[in-house]
Each structure stands twice: as structure tokens, then as C-alpha cells.
């Protein structure tokens, strides 16, 4: 086996299927709708995808270190409702303050999830499932079912408005979040996070503060969810179900990007590409006029197929892998 061959195969297994899928979908979009690549239209597509992309980046951090975050949807809902509730009580609150408060609150929710998961050793699936129930319950309990205030235009600018008259702030936010995520994964912290997801014991014995790294991942995921909440709230206003289903969409996007549940493998770029693919798929289905009801069926089939494709390649490599590791043991 040549190095090149291996490299190609490795590239295939780490993310290329999603880039292929994204390419196919984007080409299909271009065929369906020739105007899709006009700057305005395309930017608005990116704007629409921004919350999911940011959620996927956050979810990636958690998944890659071997955990789940099912609470992101609830954080988005809670974020939107809390923002409206804050504005209900303090109509004059400056938007940067509210935004920062939301981001901190999201990070706090992530911190709690992270600490429960790492210190109390509760599987994160359960921690974040519980967190989801708690957040949804608490927020609506607090607001009596629906928030008192509405979101003022200044606050909504980030999700709705444009910079320089043409560049949606959301695209900018998405870009910044994406760059930060990529930088992060290239940093020492990012590499140790990957190693933690790959082998917790090896990481711990190399001096990695495993619990801390994981908790930080949860905090970042919570913060990313809060940022998504700001965008979603800005994009579409107050809604009591702003974040519904986002947790599964984000996980789907990440997995679609070839990131392996269980940790240690996959790139954040591929995860975000997964989010774009998902959004492109929704858009394509919309533009094709596929019956709304069938959309989820198509989505289900594509998700299973794409992941199976990744898994198929991967399983062959894995055999190769067990062979080598086996050989080493003999």
C-alpha cells in the first residue's frame, strides 16, 4: 500500500463524502434555480444556514471528545424566550448587553452539563436530556408559557440585518464562529480535545485535564447554542418553539460530516459542511416543491445513506487497522 493510496483513503473517510454530497446538492440547486448563485440569494442561503452551522460547530466540539449535547435545541428556545422576557422587563436594555447575557447564560448551561457529566459521571446523553427538560420547563415556568416582551430591531439586527448594506451579519457571525472553531481545533486545546475523545486514558496520562477539556467543550457548545439563539431570534422573532428539533439537526449535521459518534475522529470543517448540506437539502426540497410531508422521509434516507457510505469506507479501513494492530501484537 502506497502512502498516497492511504492518504486518499483517509481523505475519503474523513469528510470527503460530505463534501461530495454538498457539491451534488449545490449543483442540483444551481440546476433547479439558476439564480441561486446571485450574491444576494446565496448570502441569504448562508444566512439561513448560519444558526445550524454554528450549532454544528458547537456540537462537533462535544461529539469529538466523546459526548453528546441534546440540550442545544432547548438552549436556543430558552435563549429566544429569555431575551424577549428581558426586553419585557427592561425595554431599554442595550442589545450588546442582552446578547452577552445570553451567551453567558448558554455557556453556564453548558458548564452545568459539563460538570455533571465529568464530575458525576452521568452519560452526557442523559445529562443533556435532563438539561433539555429542565431548561424548557424552567423557562416556560418562569414566563408563564410565553414571554412578556418582544425583541426590538436593534437586537434582531444580528440575525436579520446586513452590514455595509449587503453582507448579512449572520453570515459574518457564522464566518467568525467557523474561523474560531477551525483555529480552536488547530490549537493545542483542540488537539488535546481530539485526543481526549480518542483515548481518554492516554490523554489523562499525558497530563491532559480531561474533565476540564470536556467541560470546556460543553461550555462552548452552550455558548454556540446561545449565539444561534441570538441569530434565530433575530432572524424570525419571538417564538416559543424557536429551537425545536435543532438538537437532532445539529447532531445529524455533524454525523453527516463524517464525524464519528464516540469521539476522536472527524474535522470541524466537515461538520459545518454537514450543516450546510442539510440546509441545502431543505432548500432544494423547498425549491423542488416536494410535498412538505415527504421532506422528512427524504431527509431520513439521505442521512442513513450518507452515514452508511462513510461507515462502509471506514469499516474497510478498520479491518486494515485491526490487521496492523493485530500484527503488532504478534
Amino acid at each position, binding site marked *: 500500500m502506497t502512502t498516497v493510496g492511504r492518504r486518499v483513503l483517509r481523505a475519503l473517510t474523513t469528510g470527503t463524502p460530505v463534501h461530495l454530497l454538498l457539491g451534488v446538492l449545490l449543483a442540483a440547486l444551481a440546476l433547479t434555480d439558476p439564480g441561486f448563485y446571485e450574491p444576494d440569494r446565496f448570502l441569504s442561503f448562508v444566512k439561513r444556514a448560519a444558526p445550524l452551522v454554528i450549532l454544528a460547530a458547537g456540537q462537533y466540539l462535544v461529539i469529538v471528545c466523546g459526548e453528546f449535547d441534546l440540550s442545544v435545541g432547548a438552549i436556543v428556545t430558552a435563549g429566544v424566550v429569555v431575551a424577549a422576557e428581558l426586553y419585557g422587563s427592561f425595554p431599554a436594555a442595550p442589545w450588546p448587553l442582552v446578547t452577552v447575557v445570553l451567551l453567558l447564560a448558554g455557556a453556564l448551561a453548558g458548564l452545568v452539563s459539563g460538570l455533571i457529566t465529568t464530575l458525576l459521571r452521568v*452519560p452526557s446523553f*442523559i445529562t443533556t436530556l435532563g438539561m433539555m427538560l429542565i431548561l424548557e420547563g424552567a423557562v416556560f415556568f418562569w414566563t408563564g408559557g410565553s414571554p412578556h416582551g418582544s425583541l426590538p430591531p436593534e437586537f434582531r439586527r444580528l440575525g436579520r440585518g446586513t452590514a455595509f448594506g449587503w453582507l448579512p451579519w449572520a453570515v459574518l457571525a457564522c464566518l467568525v464562529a467557523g474561523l474560531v472553531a477551525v483555529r480552536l481545533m488547530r490549537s493545542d486545546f483542540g488537539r488535546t480535545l481530539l485526543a481526549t475523545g480518542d483515548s481518554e486514558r492516554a490523554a489523562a496520562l499525558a497530563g491532559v485535564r480531561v474533565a476540564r477539556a470536556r467541560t470546556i467543550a460543553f461550555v462552548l457548545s452552550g455558548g454556540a447554542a446561545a449565539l444561534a439563539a441570538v441569530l434565530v431570534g433575530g432572524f424570525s422573532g419571538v417564538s416559543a418553539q424557536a429551537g425545536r428539533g435543532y438538537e437532532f439537526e445539529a447532531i445529524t449535521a455533524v454525523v453527516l460530516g463524517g464525524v464519528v459518534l464516540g469521539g476522536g475522529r472527524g474535522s470541524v470543517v466537515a461538520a459545518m459542511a454537514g450543516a450546510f448540506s442539510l440546509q441545502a437539502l431543505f432548500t432544494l426540497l423547498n425549491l423542488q416543491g416536494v410535498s412538505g410531508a415527504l421532506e422528512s422521509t427524504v431527509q431520513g434516507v439521505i442521512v442513513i445513506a450518507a452515514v452508511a457510505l462513510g461507515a462502509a469506507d471506514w469499516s474497510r479501513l478498520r479491518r486494515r487497522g485491526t490487521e496492523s494492530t493485530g500484527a503488532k501484537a504478534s
Partner: protein
Amino acid sequence: MTALRHDASTRPLAEALRTARPRPTGPVAGVWLAALAVTVAGWIAVAARGGDFLTVTNAVTILQNCVALGLVAVGQSVVVLSGSLDLSVAYLISLGTLVAAETMESGSVLVAVVAVLALCAAVGLANGLIVTGLKVNAFIATLGTAFILRGWIEDNYTGPAGKVPASFQHLGYDRIGPVPVSLFLLLAITAALWLTTRRTRLGHHMYATGGDEHAARLSGVRTRRTVVTAHLLCSLCAGAAALFLAARLGAGAPWAGTEARYDLESIAAVVLGGTALAGGRGGVAGTLGGVLVLAVLDSVFNQLSVDPFFKNVVRGVVIIAAVALYARGRRTPQERTA
């Protein structure tokens, strides 16, 4: 391996204790004790407000409320302890009620029961094959199946459909003495699953596959077959839940399974019952206890007229706390995190 190594000489006492102790493991006893504790606490709380918690009616209501979730959850525990997961049960139940009610309207009850079970078997088989054959992570595989079922339901049904004849509604409403007949269905299925998981080869292989798939395979266990069977059993349990719900609702409803979030609720009940989410440990007996805890909690909330939103907060806390307690109990020096 170092972490696994012990000085053998310190072990005999522990081994002796271990040998002497009968098999039921900690969490099972724990969750039933918790159910008892919640009942007592609820009784005190309700009594303090001048109510009466431990009435026959109330007890019957609690038990009745266990049935649907119980049926799904015992099935879910079989997949979970085999190391898999099923997120498609909620939509499968919805579809099951619809198929049951429609078939009963036009055909016989028997045909309907067979149709629902066949449908569920097919979905379970598909889930199992996607997980084992295509090697798609169970989380994603069953989520995908859920999406597919959802599309199917939304495309084909525009609301409640079908009608369940009175003869079949007995399953949902009749009682023997104070005990609802459906409870016997739940107990029968649970007993059957308990026997299957604990006393048959299939069950041993499920624990083995969930505990360490590689080791199980090397030992000659047909791990794929085992996982597929587990998915099959889980879906059939979802089918039983669908039939029960159809009997109780008198019709099929597209939201029969989803509004109640049977997917996540059943997993919550499973882990509440002490089954490890990673598989290999736990069992259906504990799950039933977990379901009971949730039902008793619900009833207490009802009696105290707690805000429904606040209920969710408490449920979330209870689930996390319970699993944290199990994790504490399981924490041993040689615990492997891999």
C-alpha cells in the same frame, strides 16, 4: 491493563461475598426502593394538603399510566442493553395506532393485530440491519428511520383515522377487580422479556454483545443477529404499545407516540431503571421500576396541581440525579472508560 490488575491476595473476601450474593444487582433494588420512597413522599405531601394519595382509584390510575410507557420502555431496555438504541419508537407507535385502527375499521381485529406486529417487525428488522449491516451508528440509524416514518405518516394521514371496535377497546378500559387488564399485558410482556434476557441464550448473547461486542464475537456469539433480534423485540414492544393505545384511544392518531415523546421518555425510563446506556448491564425489571417512578411522580404532581412546566424541571433533575447515583455506585478502581 495495569488498571485491571489486582493483587490477587486481597480478593478472596470480595469474591466470597460476591458468590454468596444472589444475582439481582444494585440498581434494580434501588429503583424499586426509589419508587417506594417517591410514593411515601408523595403520600406525605398530598396528605399534608388534606388529600388522600393512597386510594385504590389513584393506585389504579398510576398503574394504568405505566402501561404505554412501560411497554415501550421494556422493549427499549432490550436494545439498550444490547448496546444499541432506538429513537424511532415514537413514530412507530403513531403509525401503529393508525394502521391498527384503520385495519380494524375495515377488517378484523386479528388481521389488524397481525398487520401492526408485521409492520413493527419490518421496521425493527430494518433498524437492526441498518445498524449491523450498514454499520450506521444506532443513534443516527434510528433517527433516520424515525424521519422516514414521520414522512410516511404525514404524507398519508391527515389526522386521527380509523375506528377500533368495542371488542378491542376492552384491552384499554377493562379491569379485573381493580386491576386494568392492560397491566397484565405489560406484566406478561415484561416477564417474557425478563425470561428472554436472563434465561435464554439469546439473552446471554444480548448482555455479551452490549458489554463487549468484540469479545462476544470472538467467543462465537452471532453479534449481528443478536442486535437485529433486539431491535426486532423492541419494535414489537412498540407495536404492543401501539395496539394498547389504539384500544384506549378508540382510533389511530398521528401524534399518539410523538406528543408523549416516547422515544426520549423510554430511554429516560430505561436509564432510571439502572440499565447502563452503554449496554451490557441492567435489565427489564429495573426499567419497570423506572417507569413506575415516573408514573408516581406524575400522579403526585397531579394531586398537588404542580405547574406542568415545573414538572419537566423536576423530571430532568430526577433523571440526572438517579443516573449520577448509579454512576457513583458503579465507580470502581478498575472502571474502564474506554
